C-alpha cells in the first residue's frame, strides 16, 4: 500500500468530519447532525462510517479526544482538531479552492459551438 501523502485528496466524509470539528470540539452525534446541517441534509453519516473516519483520523494524529462526559448513563466523547489536523484541513481547502477557481475560469472562456464557426 502506498503511504498516505499530504497532497492526496481527502474523502468526503473525512473532509466533512474535520470541518465539523474545526471550530469547536464535538461529540459523535453532534458531528453527524452538524454534517447534515452543513450539507443541507445531503450527507447523513451513519455510525459505522463516522467511527471508521474518527478511528483513522485519530491514529493519523489529525484529531484527538478533547474530553469525555456521561449524559443519561451514555458515554459522550468529544473530539478536537490537532495542529496537524488543522494543517491538513487547510491544505485540502486550498486544493479544493484552486480546483474550483480553475473550473470557473475555464467555464468563462468556454465558447459555444456556434461561436467557433462565426
Amino acid at each position, binding site marked *: 500500500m502506498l503511504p498516505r501523502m499530504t497532497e492526496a485528496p481527502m474523502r468526503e466524509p473525512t473532509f466533512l468530519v474535520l470541518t465539523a470539528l474545526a471550530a469547536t470540539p464535538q461529540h*459523535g*452525534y453532534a458531528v*453527524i447532525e452538524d454534517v447534515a446541517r452543513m450539507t443541507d441534509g445531503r450527507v447523513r453519516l*451513519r*455510525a*459505522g*462510517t*463516522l*467511527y*471508521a473516519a*474518527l*478511528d483513522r483520523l485519530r491514529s493519523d494524529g489529525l484529531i484527538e479526544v478533547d474530553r469525555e462526559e456521561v449524559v443519561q448513563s*451514555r*458515554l*459522550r*466523547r468529544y473530539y478536537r482538531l490537532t495542529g496537524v489536523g488543522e494543517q491538513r484541513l487547510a491544505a485540502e481547502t486550498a486544493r479544493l479552492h484552486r480546483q474550483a477557481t480553475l473550473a470557473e475560469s475555464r467555464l468563462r472562456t468556454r465558447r459555444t459551438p456556434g461561436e467557433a464557426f462565426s
Partner: protein
Amino acid sequence: MNLETRYRRLLAVYPARHRSAYADEMVAVLMDGARPGQRLPSLREAADLLWCGFAARARARRAVRSPDPARREAAAIAGLIGAVMLAAVAVRRLYLASSMGFAEGAPVRDVAVRALVWTVVAVLVLVGLRRSAAALAVLGVLVEAAAIVVWLPVEAFRPIRMSWALALSLLTAAFLVVARRARRPVLGSVPATLGLRRAPAGARGRVAVLLAPLVTVPVAQPVLETVIGIHTAPAVTAGIVLADVAVMVGLPLLALGLAVAARRAMADLRLTRTGVAGHAPAEQGRGSQHSR
C-alpha cells in the same frame, strides 16, 4: 430485547480492540439517532455497521500480519546474512572439490545447486526483490533437504551431519518470509539493506537479536556431534535423532532468548542513563549557583 441490546449485538462484528475503544460511544450515537419508540435497528444503519465492522476486522488482520518496518528491515538483513553464510559454505565446498580434481559429475551437483540458490537469494534481497527472495529461500530449504536425502543410501549419518544446513536454511527462509514486504520495491533498497544507518530506528538492535540464533547454528553442530559421539556411533538411533532435534532447536532458541533479554536490559540501562542525563543539567545549574 431492546434496541440498545440489538445494537450491541451488531457491534460484535467489530474487532475486540475497536469495540473496547468505541462500543459504548457508538451505542450512545446510535441511540441518539433512534426515533422515539424505535425497537429495531434501521436497515441502513445495520448494513453500515456490518460493512464497517468487517472492514475494521480485515484492517486489524492486515495490521497483525505485516510486522512493523523496523522488524521487517532487521529480518531482511538477518536473512541476507543467512543466505550469504549458506552460499559461502556451498561455494567453498565446490571450490575444494574442483581443486581436488573431481568436480565433474554427481558428487558435487547438489553442492552446486545449493551454492546457486543461496547466491541468487542474497542477490534478490540486495536488489530489493523481497517476495522473490522469500519464495526462493523456501525452495532453498527443500534443496537442502534434497541434498541430504540423495546421500542417504551411502551415508546414514548424513541428516545428522548436515543438521546445521537445514537449521540455517530454515531460519534464513523464516527471516525472509517475515521481510517479504519490501519498503521500497526495486533497486532503491540496496543502500537501505546495506547501510544500517538508513534502516528505521530500532532495526540495528533487532538485527543483533536475530543474528544470535543464526550464528549459534554452526556452533551447535559440533556440540551435537560431541554429545552423540558421532565417530563411534554404529547407527542412527531414535535417541540420536531426539538429541539432534533438541540441540539444533534448543541452542538457537536459547541464543535468541538470551539476545532478547540482553536487548531489554540494554534498553532499560539506556532509559536510566537518559534519566540521569536529564537531571544532570539542572544539578549543574544549581551547583554553579551555589559556587557563586
